[in-house]
């Protein structure tokens, strides 16, 4: 009798259905996650898989490494600057896109494209955009006389060499990050704005609050959790990304002007075969990840409670 209806019982069926996912996650996320820690304290390389634990030597080595310091700095700069710009621009863009107008679906599609299209492919467009000779941006600058004539504002050379000069290469990487994250930020912001009850804004309007008063006293405070989540996700995303740098500059121009932690870890761990050092570098994502996870957890718990 009991056996016949075994699959009806929640306390048996529920774990049974979860079992495959849990096993999979443990094997291919949990286990590698632990191995990342183990590797970082070892001397493992691709050629020498029989490794032994060497303590914190890898960390001492990389912290003393100028390239690592440069990469860490770049990672923070790219993340901080991109997110700040995205935060401002996405508010303006959300204000525009929340209105109704003709052809909105097409505009929406075009504006979302940097996020919805694969970033590696989108970045290829920027390779041409920022090309050392044929850059369309340079062409515009030349057309306006800002570049390429003896007394031009940006110099007498015919090109900016965006990806060839350290400062401009950093600007380029940030540009692509902003370009890519802006749609995401905007979409989440619009979802948040739509969730603010219209009555509240109308009540404020009736009470005589002007646009900016409503923005700063009502809209922004109510949006704060949404903005917070967006910033966290975007920050984690940018901080750990290497695709943009890899496709655009390969970390260059030398010496490592746009190298970031992720690309450095790839360079050392995969291409250089030094798994231990690569793992140690990528472990620097862990505190950021843990911080974001903790905050997301807090938010989720709160959302579940209310």
């Amino acid at each position, binding site marked *: 009798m009991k056996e016949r209806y075994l699959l009806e019982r929640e306390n048996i069926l529920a774990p049974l259905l979860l079992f495959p996912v849990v096993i999979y996650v443990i094997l291919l996320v949990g286990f590698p996650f632990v191995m990342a820690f183990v590797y970082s304290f070892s001397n493992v390389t691709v050629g020498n898989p029989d490794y032994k634990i060497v303590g914190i030597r890898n960390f001492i080595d990389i912290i003393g490494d100028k390239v690592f310091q440069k990469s860490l700095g770049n990672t923070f700069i790219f993340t901080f600057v991109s997110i700040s710009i995205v935060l401002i621009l996405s508010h303006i863009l959300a204000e525009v896109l929340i209105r109704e107008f003709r052809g909105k679906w097409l505009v929406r599609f075009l504006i979302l494209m940097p996020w919805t299209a694969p970033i590696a492919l989108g970045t290829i467009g920027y390779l041409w955009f920022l090309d050392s000779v044929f850059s369309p941006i340079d062409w515009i600058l030349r057309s306006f006389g800002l570049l390429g004539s003896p007394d031009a504002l940006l110099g007498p050379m015919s090109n900016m060499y965006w990806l060839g000069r350290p400062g401009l290469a950093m600007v380029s990487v940030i540009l692509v990050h902003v370009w890519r994250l802006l749609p995401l930020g905007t979409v989440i912001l619009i979802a948040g704005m739509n969730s603010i009850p219209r009555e509240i804004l109308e009540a404020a309007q009736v009470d005589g609050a002007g646009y900016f008063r409503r923005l700063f006293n009502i809209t922004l405070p109510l949006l704060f959790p949404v903005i917070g989540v967006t910033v966290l996700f975007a920050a984690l995303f940018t901080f750990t990304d290497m695709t943009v740098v890899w496709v655009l500059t390969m970390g260059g121009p030398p010496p490592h002007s746009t190298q970031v932690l992720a690309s450095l*870890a790839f360079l050392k761990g995969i291409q250089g075969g030094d798994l231990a050092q690569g793992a140690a570098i990528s472990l620097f994502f862990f505190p950021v990840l843990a911080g974001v996870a903790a905050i997301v957890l807090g938010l989720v718990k709160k959302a579940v409670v209310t």
Partner: protein
Amino acid sequence: MLNRIIIRGGFYGALVFFIIFSASPFYVMLITMFKRGHDLFNPNNNPFFFNEPITLEHLDLLFTQTLYTKFLLNTFLVGIAVVAITIIFAVPAALSLARMAGRWGENLGIGIFLTYLIPPTLLFIPLSRVVSTLGLQNSLWSLILVYPTFTVPFCTWLLMSFFKSIPREIEEQALIDGCSRINAFFKILLPISIPGIITVIVFTFTLVAHEYIYALAFIQDSGEKTIGIGMTTELVRGDVFYWGALMGGALIASIPVAILYTLFLDRIISGLAMGTAKR
């Protein structure tokens, strides 16, 4: 009156600015893929329009002289396999989390979602060892094995919120009407959740098309590459860039992915948000 004109002007100004900012790389891709080499490689020519008659030579090169179609096919194959695995893993798990598990299930659900936050750049070094131990390097199977690490957690969460949005009573009614739990799921819950499952399929597909880092780390064989790494490593040879083909290839692969993603974006966002709501 003047006020309104300024507001309207500001609105359209901002609109045009953002459209140009977001779409111009794709627009230039579109122009470049049809431009004659002679037109393209003259720095004084307007890069935003055709200065000479258009040509299909770049597309011809792309489809006949390069592995482009192979890259597309590989991406598609990996996509199909990962979608299948994701559905098989995520649907039962989401069902369990949405319907049956109690307090511990809620925590486990959040735990599974958090694994989605772990960036590939933290895992690719140990995973590359796993892949080579299994002898899967340079094989599409390596991607099929690893991609579910991010698609399954995300889709479990998404599906869980879809299942939660279906009243529990509908399922209980099915139990009373003579179904076993499994039957109630296949006959009632699953047909009602088809929109949610389609969303998951589409999203898994776009995630696969977007992925770059694992593919870069695991695959070096030209013939086994997926679209992202294939384009950026095979068509960019040293200093010789096949610009027309490169632009065309990037655009042609981007558009279907972007269309699918855009169509389902709202559902994905609301699904994500709903996952946190009480049932």
